[in-house]
């Protein structure tokens, strides 16, 4: 349920970006990247976002969430793997030495505004 706090932080950041650029148009789309290991549930984030923007100038804004998969590879046999869970061993050679790059992102990537 910390997605509500994250949605609040996202809205503050959107407002900050608009103010910094002195933009007053209607926000159409917001693009966000969420890593698979960020501990954030995309549906919960979307739900919280929609609850927070209801009856505000941002009402109707579309939230696009891009789930970022980490890059995982085995240090021993060099197998590349796609995982939904944190990898504890290589599915090919069972080595525990797995390199995981990324997957914990939580980023506001872009805002689209009608001016």
């Amino acid at each position, binding site marked *: *349920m*910390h997605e509500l*706090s*994250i949605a609040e*932080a*996202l809205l*503050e*950041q959107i407002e900050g*970006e608009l103010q910094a*650029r002195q*933009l007053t*148009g209607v926000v*159409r789309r917001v693009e*966000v990247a969420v890593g698979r*290991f*960020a*501990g*954030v549930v995309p549906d919960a984030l979307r739900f919280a976002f929609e609850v927070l923007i209801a009856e505000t100038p941002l009402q109707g804004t579309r939230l696009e969430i891009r789930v970022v998969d980490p890059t995982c590879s085995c240090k021993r046999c060099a197998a590349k793997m796609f995982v939904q*869970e*944190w990898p*504890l*061993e290589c599915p090919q050679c069972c080595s*525990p030495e797995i390199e995981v790059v990324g997957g914990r992102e*939580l*980023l*506001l*990537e*872009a*805002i*689209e*505004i*009608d*001016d």
Partner: protein
Amino acid sequence: MVRIVAAQNILKANDQIASMNRSRFAALSLLVVNVMGSPGSGKTTLLESIAAQCANRLRVGVIEGDLAGSVDAERLEKLGLPTVQINTQGACHLDASMIATACESLPLEKLDLLFIENVGNLVCPASFDLGEDLRLLVLSVPEGDDKLVKYPVIFQVADVLVVTKADLCGFVSFDVERIRKDFARIQPTAALFETAATRNQGIEPLVDWLAEKYREKQVLRRCE
């Protein structure tokens, strides 16, 4: 149509306050430990035992985070520890600004070790930096040895894992070696301690480890 490309961390505002907290703690050589774990895992009981063991060694203070009430803070105040209670009013985690506010009511300059007991939860606290030096994760034996596989994110951010209620190992199914092996894979450099706080078992090695981390922080400050 205007397109703004931002590429910014959504929790930037929290992270900025966390880094202000961190600078403040560093200037005081205060070692700050964020204690995380499920409700009922034994976080407060562990802190009581650690504080007793620290007497005459390290000066301990506590920030208690709970949805409501001050039951835990009262337990620690009884031990004579400077304690501040944060009520999150329903929020599932502590954030950096709550810590900044709580610190205003603590004699930080008279402390060596500050524990922040986070809201009991194995998910949400992992996302919020508070400005701490160490993240101490508590896992109690009755919770089961499969928690790491089910809640990997919080284990990934832990610097030290403390298995509590180890005296219950014979009564419930819990394989300490499984946890040790899985945790070493997910966090190869992190420490692990087995404790039974109500019997005062395993507390001393943990306090020695914390004291060493405190000493390292002081050395680091002198080097700066």
